[in-house]
């Protein structure tokens, strides 16, 4: 933890890609306190995934700094300070579920007994206890993504990065996994950065929603989600929930002149 106590500090981050002279991110400032659940939302091309990768030191910013737990992003990655979940589970098909979850533990040099015990706990956490010996191709998309979450959290990182983790799942599975993710987050208290293009998902899950606008990628506004900490199915029927959804949508629309017509259509349909 840094002296300021912040988990993530992003200061003046700009990222330009030399190919095609694209500015993916421009002058981003953002700070995450411990235990926060922050969503990054915006139309495609707004740089939300790029920002996530800059935090994870998978992409180097052109200007600006990223500090994680008081360290450089590079040092934080070397220290395995974060776990990551992608849109696809990216499981190793030659390993069964238990051994997939154990991958980061093996890299950390944990012994077999310690790995086994932690894998058991993680399987319990994501409610897949009966599936330790299954291979990835025997699982549904939602179950695979739960394995990916278990793998990301197995070594108890302070920070969890999620890049549209439920984007490839059907609506019903997505809503169930939203609830499961919240209960896991409540148990572990880790800080989460969650990239999504679903307004309802962002509002439902987050303590703060960072709305981004494209070309160049900027923060259009930040919405504090003042819903009760304990979210449930009823939260989605709370009038305050609708107000917040509207607020996020207005923010996205205020930058509408930057959107392509099909992006605007996608934005509308993602809410409906």
């Amino acid at each position, binding site marked *: 933890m840094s002296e300021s106590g912040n988990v993530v500090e992003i200061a003046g981050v700009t990222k330009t890609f030399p190919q095609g002279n694209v500015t993916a991110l421009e002058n981003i400032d953002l700070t995450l306190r411990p235990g926060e659940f922050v969503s990054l939302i915006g139309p495609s091309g707004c740089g939300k995934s790029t920002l996530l990768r800059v935090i*994870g030191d*998978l992409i180097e910013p052109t200007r600006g700094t990223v500090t994680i737990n008081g360290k450089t992003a590079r040092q934080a*990655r*070397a*220290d*395995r300070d*974060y*776990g*990551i979940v*992608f849109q*696809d589970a*990216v499981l*190793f*098909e*030659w390993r069964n579920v238990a051994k997939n979850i154990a*991958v*980061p533990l*093996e*890299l950390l040099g944990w012994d077999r007994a310690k790995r086994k015990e932690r894998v058991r706990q993680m399987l319990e956490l994501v409610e897949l206890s009966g599936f330790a010996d299954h*291979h*990835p*191709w025997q699982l549904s998309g939602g179950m695979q993504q739960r394995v990916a979450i278990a793998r990301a959290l197995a070594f108890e990182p302070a920070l969890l990065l999620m890049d549209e983790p439920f984007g490839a799942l059907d609506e019903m599975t997505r809503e169930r996994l939203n609830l499961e993710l919240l209960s896991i987050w409540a148990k572990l208290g880790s800080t989460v950065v969650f990239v999504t293009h679903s307004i309802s998902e962002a509002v439902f899950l987050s303590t703060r929603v960072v709305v981004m606008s494209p070309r160049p990628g900027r923060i259009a506004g930040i919405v504090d989600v003042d819903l009760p900490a304990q979210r449930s199915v009823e939260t989605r029927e709370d009038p305050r929930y609708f107000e917040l959804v509207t607020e996020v949508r207005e923010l996205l629309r205020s930058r509408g002149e930057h959107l392509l017509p099909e992006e605007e259509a996608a934005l509308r349909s993602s809410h409906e």
Partner: protein
Amino acid sequence: MSSAAAATLPTRRTFTAPLAAGTKRAAAVVCVLAALVGLYELYHWVWVSTGWTHPFVVDDTTMPHIWVILHALWQPAQVNQPALGTILFHKSLFTAKEAAVGFGLGAVIGFAIGVVLVHSRLLTRGFLPYIVASQTIPILAIAPMVVIWVNPKLPAGVQGWGSVAVIAAYLTFFPVAINTLRGLQSADPRALELMRTYAASRWTVLWKLRVPTSLPYVFAALKIAATASVVGAIIGELPSGLQDGLGGAILNFNQYYSIEPQELWATNIVAALLGIIFFVGVVAAEKAIVRRAPETVE
């Protein structure tokens, strides 16, 4: 359905299904073999009875009967010698030894080349043309040089057959190197990114991700290499002047073809069987090692 029947049903399935599949496969092999023998004899009969001479004259020299070929295996090729089958069995053990060592050597070298090249685009660009060029030179042109260069350096027990193993390795390493490189390169970019988030070393990425991903490619190459190593060993024996293997036998029976064609045919069948045994060995190893999604789910 009663609970007892429900309980026995899955058990019966798991035991009979693989057995039935095995029987089916064996039946298919026998049927195809019988059909091929039938076609061979039918061709022989039609061409002999009609007197057709295109594309070549058919008689008992150009196409000896299958039973004559098989019978030859039980007959001594020369007076006061054991049966041809016994001799060929010992000769094929000798060739198998050369081929197996050559296969192992070539597989290890080929795999190592793939591992080195996947880590450097520069090395790949620089070396790949020469690796390809190595295979455009006929093995018969390389073999005498290998025998002259390698043989004197070998310890006494390995001299002779050792240089033939090197020739077999020369044929083996190429498909393994090319496919290993391709397999190691085929690792999912997202999985590589995941390994980066763990700050995994090159070595860890290689063993935990690239090598497991490459195995299906490597085994495809090993199947080609298995048969190539047998061919390499047989051809390698020719310029080495070795008489202990199948290559020596083939060279010898070539000279007597017009009198006793069945002996060369019998030798060819034994050589083919040896290649098949090598191939089946690789398939068995693949089944034991590679875990992957079944392509069809029954």
